[in-house]
């Protein structure tokens, strides 16, 4: 059964067809949630909430990109989790402090053992920099650069215009780059972005 047939059946309340779609999209949904939220358990909760919400909303699905539709629900679930996190700022700050000071003790469970330690350090640095982005920029940067969505798909998933997607992505990338430049000395030499010359010439990061 192809995806369109599964979608049609799921719209009529066929839970088996919908769960087939879940198996197709759960990897993408979980990865997006993890990169936006930075926590495996919270990301799993957001993913589960998103699919439950999607199943209830299936009868209202009016065609278009099912991937964008699912990702919109996933990002909304992530926003909900972020709001819950903001209500407990103390624990959130503690987590950030631990993550910043003891990055070497945090291991991404998805990382392969044979990856170089240097690469793992870089990945942790990038994830921390993503989490430091404003939420709107973070979501779009994850959808674009982590998940590889097109501008049109991102606009559909976030309910914004193409212009907004472009500008937020541009600012998010620049900000991420600037953080990597600032923390370059923490990285292995081959992963350093040499921004000191630029800072001297053009006045440093623009944002």
């Amino acid at each position: 059964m192809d995806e369109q047939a599964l979608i049609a059946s799921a719209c009529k309340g066929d839970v088996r067809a919908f769960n087939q779609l879940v198996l197709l999209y759960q990897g993408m949904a979980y990865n997006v949630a993890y990169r936006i939220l930075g926590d495996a358990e919270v990301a799993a909760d957001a993913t589960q909430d998103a699919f439950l919400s999607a199943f209830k909303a299936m009868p209202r699905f009016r065609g278009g990109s099912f991937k964008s539709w699912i990702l919109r629900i996933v990002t909304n679930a992530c926003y909900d989790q972020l709001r819950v996190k903001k209500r407990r700022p103390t624990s959130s700050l503690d987590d950030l402090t631990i993550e910043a000071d003891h990055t070497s003790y945090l291991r991404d469970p998805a990382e392969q053992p044979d990856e170089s330690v240097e690469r793992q350090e870089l990945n942790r640095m990038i994830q921390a920099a993503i989490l430091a982005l404003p939420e709107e920029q973070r979501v779009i940067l994850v959808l674009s650069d982590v998940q590889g969505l097109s501008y049109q798909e991102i606009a559909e998933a976030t309910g914004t215009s193409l212009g907004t997607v472009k500008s937020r992505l541009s600012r998010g990338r620049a900000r991420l780059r600037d953080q990597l430049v600032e923390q370059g000395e923490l990285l292995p030499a081959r992963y350093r972005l040499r921004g000191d010359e630029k800072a001297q010439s053009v006045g440093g990061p623009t944002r």
Partner: protein
Amino acid sequence: MIRFGKPDAKTEHTYFEERLSTYLDGELLPQEQATVEQHLDTCPACQWDLDTLRQTVQWTRDLPTLTVPRVFTVPAPAEPERAARPRWRLVPVMQGATALIALLLFFVVAGDFLLLGNGRQLSAPKPMMVQATAPAGAVEEAPAEEVVMLVETLEVEVPKEVVTVVVTEAEMVVETVVVEVEVAVEVEKVVAEPTQTPAPAAAEPAEPVAEATPIEGARAGTEEPAAEPMAEATSIEDVLVEMEEPTAAEAAAQEMGEAATEAPLLAAPPPGVTEALDAAGGGALTPTMLAPTLRAAVTSTDGAEATELALVPQDEGEPVASRTWGGRGIDWVRVAEYVLGVAFVAFSAGTLVAMLLQRRVL
């Protein structure tokens, strides 16, 4: 190791910097892309931005894909709950319908007994028709009392001319019951030869009169009626005298006829009135209620040869509060009672079944 050349400060640096991200993705319009590429050739700072951005995006895309910690399929809704849903909805609907039908049935039955019930009782008696006819000779010879006897014997003979006195509303006093009677006198002259064939109405025997009870009441009533009907009867005389202005030769016979007229008016509360009074339980009856039963047609003779006395209903066979429409004789109130009763029983049973299904007894 990525090396970036030393950039130069350029005008419009910010403008191009905002477009480098889109340029990286190849999403710029062709004209914008050419402009950016032209600027990049002359602006080391923008070139540095582009190179560092490209590297950052690449590193981000190279982030490892995480495996899901668990399966995120949604649980299937329990099937029995779906099957039970219609039953849960059916019970309140059936209960509401049953209650509504019960309410309607109550109002119809209550209205039948309280409102229309009186009308039915009033209309129940058959049309009161007292038509007394006497042979001209007998009337001439007989005194008023004998005319009454003639009425009792129901000897129907040929009237010559008919004078009809219609009592549309009557006022009577019977025991404690006060009945307002308003007498209207309508006099008709029917020109006929003394030897003419009998009038059709007079020829028909009046069945209600044949019953003994009203006549007995009439007999008893001759002795005890109140004074008012007498007075009314007197007014009838006056009217007759005024309207007819009979000749001297006719006067005697007309007096005989009027005497005959007085008798039933005085003595006999018509059968319908008697029963109506009983039905009213001693209360006052309105003239309207009595109207149909108190229409008296009193016949007299212009030629002083025959007398006919009659009490006929205003509308033959038509009840006061008619519950039949179109003359088809269908009692719609009764029909409604039957229909609602059957519906009530059916819906009560349906509600019971629905409740049993809900509790899975069946």
